[in-house]
């Protein structure tokens, strides 16, 4: 069936090429039927990519080792779910997944957003087509997943790091995020190409951007959870370049989601918003380049590939062409209004944007500098944790504070009297909380104490915003509190969904500060019956067992955990030996205390020949708030994403009943 896969990919390439050529001509000459035909080509390309993906999945599931890709990334003993998720285990499959998601997004966007205006969508189609053509070209000519061979008896198996439930969701979610950013980029370019720089491209892409941003956020959290449980060094984020690759477009799109509100409300920041969309999309391409080109030696970049120069060329083309286009359309993007006051909501959004972009660019520099150094000077340089930690504190802490300040400041301008009134309670809560934490001993880490104090300020702001909003709604409608609260959120989904997301970021900040600034670790070599003590835990090593699973030999230690003299748990840290993959993985044991949010984390570092075992025990305070924040983030994002029927009607009136130009 490899022939069918190749044919489907070739067909997909032909269709997206048609979408580019016919779509551009149709948009240029304003030919309606040709524009529709180009749109249909994009939809058909998705079907062709889906057929190709189906062929590869079938080969993976049936262990058809005549496919080079299948033998390179699976083995007969691999469980079925991992055989299927090997789709993104290698470069060729990942690129195919990119193409499938891209054409899927493209087809959905042009079909669902037709109301945005046919003449705008007509220009969006060729832009989406260009991106899809690039990925089609890669999977057809450069890195095909349908190369065949004489089938070997068994395959090489899947990288053991990928044999985790988190890895079944993390990469596809990141792809949904990365690729989703193509849609706002395509609409932004469509607006510039058509010269229609009104708000339609923003209205059309609002939900696509939010969805892509949500997928990127959840994908990163799942990646962090995977690193925490599977990589086994006790942390969850190591500022690895490939981790940063997903963080950068997320930061850029976070900035865009805020600044786009200033454009909607005040008609300002039009050029800045275009730049942010371009930045976010270029960074998503750069992230894929980092992950898939083999340019980095990272545990995440599982492949050495030949696609690096292609990607670099395409990124240069995207950046150069979009900047030229933006420059040509600058006269259309001039704002008619100005910032009225530095103490206004729009000003806080501007500060937030500057900090987000500064953080994004410092991370970009940290990721790129070692690559440049090696390419230009032949010297291998590492940008380590201190660099990133410094900038995270320098830009992240003010960002956290701004998250509390922004909602308290009115649009346009705010007088000092009203500012004093609205700031009073959050400020009092933060100061008293900070003093309390200092008294409780949190002063051992100043950044940690600042993060906690700012988090209290933001949390108080969020509570106050919900309380004041509900009260105002109650006064207006006479509804009981629960109903007033529900209608408040329902009528302002983006605002209150955003506040829920802010609450998730507060939880994340507390979790990060707690686990990184107040953690404790202790290592010891233990013989059977010996113990180690860490804070109020005593860990007694009881022995080692070994058993065979479907595709690994699992070796586990037994540790009795005592607290205040009584046994509270038995933990089994160990190692897995994968004979086919010829890899050994650390299998950590974690005991979570959901009341305090704390984790006891055990690593079997080494099993010695004399029967002793080297253990490492870590206590990570509040780390579980990080994972919990993911759920809150998801809820907030979904609230913000949920369509508002009244707004839909208003937009339908605005865009649906307009007279057409001759």
């Amino acid at each position: 069936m490899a022939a069918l896969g190749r044919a489907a990919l070739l067909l997909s390439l032909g269709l997206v090429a048609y979408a580019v050529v016919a779509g551009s001509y149709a948009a240029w000459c304003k030919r309606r039927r040709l524009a529709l035909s180009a749109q249909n080509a994009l939809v058909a390309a998705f079907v062709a990519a889906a057929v190709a993906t189906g062929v590869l999945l079938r080969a993976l599931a049936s262990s058809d080792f005549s496919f080079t890709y299948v033998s390179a990334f699976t083995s007969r003993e691999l469980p079925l779910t991992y055989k299927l998720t090997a789709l993104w285990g290698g470069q060729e499959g990942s690129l195919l997944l990119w193409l499938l998601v891209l054409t899927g997004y493209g087809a959905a966007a042009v079909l669902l957003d037709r109301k945005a205006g046919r003449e705008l969508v007509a220009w969006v189609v060729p832009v989406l087509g260009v991106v899809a053509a690039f990925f089609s070209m890669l999977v057809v000519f450069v890195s095909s997943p349908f190369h065949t061979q004489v089938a070997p008896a068994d395959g090489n198996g899947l990288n053991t790091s990928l044999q985790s439930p988190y890895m079944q969701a993390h990469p596809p979610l990141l792809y949904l995020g990365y690729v989703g950013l193509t849609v706002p980029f395509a609409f932004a370019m469509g607006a510039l190409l058509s010269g229609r720089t009104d708000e339609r491209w923003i209205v059309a892409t609002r939900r696509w951007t939010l969805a892509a941003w949500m997928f990127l956020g959840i994908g990163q959290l799942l990646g962090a959870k995977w690193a925490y449980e599977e990589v086994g060094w006790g942390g969850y984020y190591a500022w690895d370049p490939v981790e940063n690759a997903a963080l950068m477009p997320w930061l850029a799109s976070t900035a865009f989601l805020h600044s786009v509100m200033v454009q909607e409300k005040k008609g300002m920041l039009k050029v800045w918003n275009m730049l942010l969309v371009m930045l976010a999309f270029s960074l998503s391409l750069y992230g894929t380049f980092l992950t898939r080109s083999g340019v980095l030696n990272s545990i995440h970049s599982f492949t050495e590939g030949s696609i690096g120069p292609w990607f670099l060329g395409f990124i240069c083309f995207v950046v150069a062409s979009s900047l030229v286009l933006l420059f040509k359309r600058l006269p259309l993007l001039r704002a008619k209004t100005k910032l009225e006051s530095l103490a206004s909501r729009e000003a806080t959004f501007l500060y937030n944007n500057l900090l987000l972009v500064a953080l994004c660019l410092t991370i970009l520099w940290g990721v790129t500098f070692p690559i440049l150094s090696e390419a230009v000077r032949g010297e291998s340089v590492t940008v380590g944790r201190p660099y990133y930690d410094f900038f995270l504190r320098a830009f992240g802490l003010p960002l956290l504070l701004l998250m509390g300040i922004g909602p308290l400041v009115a649009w346009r301008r705010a007088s000092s009297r009203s500012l004093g009134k609205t700031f009073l309670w959050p400020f009092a809560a933060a100061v008293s909380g900070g003093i309390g934490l200092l008294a409780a001993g949190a002063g051992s880490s100043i950044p940690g104490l600042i993060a906690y104090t700012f988090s209290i300020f933001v949390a108080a702001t969020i509570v106050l915003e919900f309380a004041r909003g509900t009260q105002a709604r109650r006064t207006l409608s006479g509804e009981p509190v629960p109903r007033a609260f529900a209608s408040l959120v329902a009528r302002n989904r983006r605002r209150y969904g955003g506040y829920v997301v802010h609450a998730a970021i507060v939880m994340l900040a507390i979790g990060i500060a707690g686990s990184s600034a107040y953690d404790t670790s202790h290592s010891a070599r233990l013989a059977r019956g010996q113990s180690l003590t860490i804070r109020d835990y005593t860990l007694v090593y009881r022995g080692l067992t070994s058993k065979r699973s479907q595709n690994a030999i699992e070796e586990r230690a037994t540790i009795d955990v005592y607290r205040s003299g009584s046994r509270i748990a038995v933990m089994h840290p160990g190692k897995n030996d994968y004979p086919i993959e010829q890899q050994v993985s650390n299998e950590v044991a974690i005991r979570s205390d959901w009341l305090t949010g704390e984790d006891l984390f055990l690593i079997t570092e080494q099993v010695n020949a004399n029967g002793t075992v080297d253990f490492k025990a870590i206590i990570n305070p509040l780390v579980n708030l990080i994972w919990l924040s993911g759920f809150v983030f998801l809820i907030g994002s979904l609230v913000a994403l949920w369509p508002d029927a009244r707004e839909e009607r208003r937009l339908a009136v605005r865009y649906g009943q307009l007279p057409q130009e001759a």
Partner: protein
Amino acid sequence: MLTAALVLGALLAAAAVWFVARPFLAAHAGGDRLGAPDSGRLALEEQRDRALAALKELEFDHRTGKVSDEDYRSQVGELRRTAAHALRALDVGREESNTDVDDQLPQL
């Protein structure tokens, strides 16, 4: 197996060609011209919506205590004027386009 793959591939290609050609095959009311909305009118609609949303926001911020009475009074007038200006301009546009249609009616 190869034959089956080729047949399936050919069927897929034929279906794609039919789908892409569909806009040319179907009978469409209206011409082949890709219309665009009146950009001046669109700008006015956006201006009106922006001013009305700002008014709503100001009312809400005033009610929640974020905007003092003094700030409210100094801003509400200007926002009302902006919204009224956009509404008036839109009304004028509507009347003009209605007049055009009326003028054309006797000729049809």
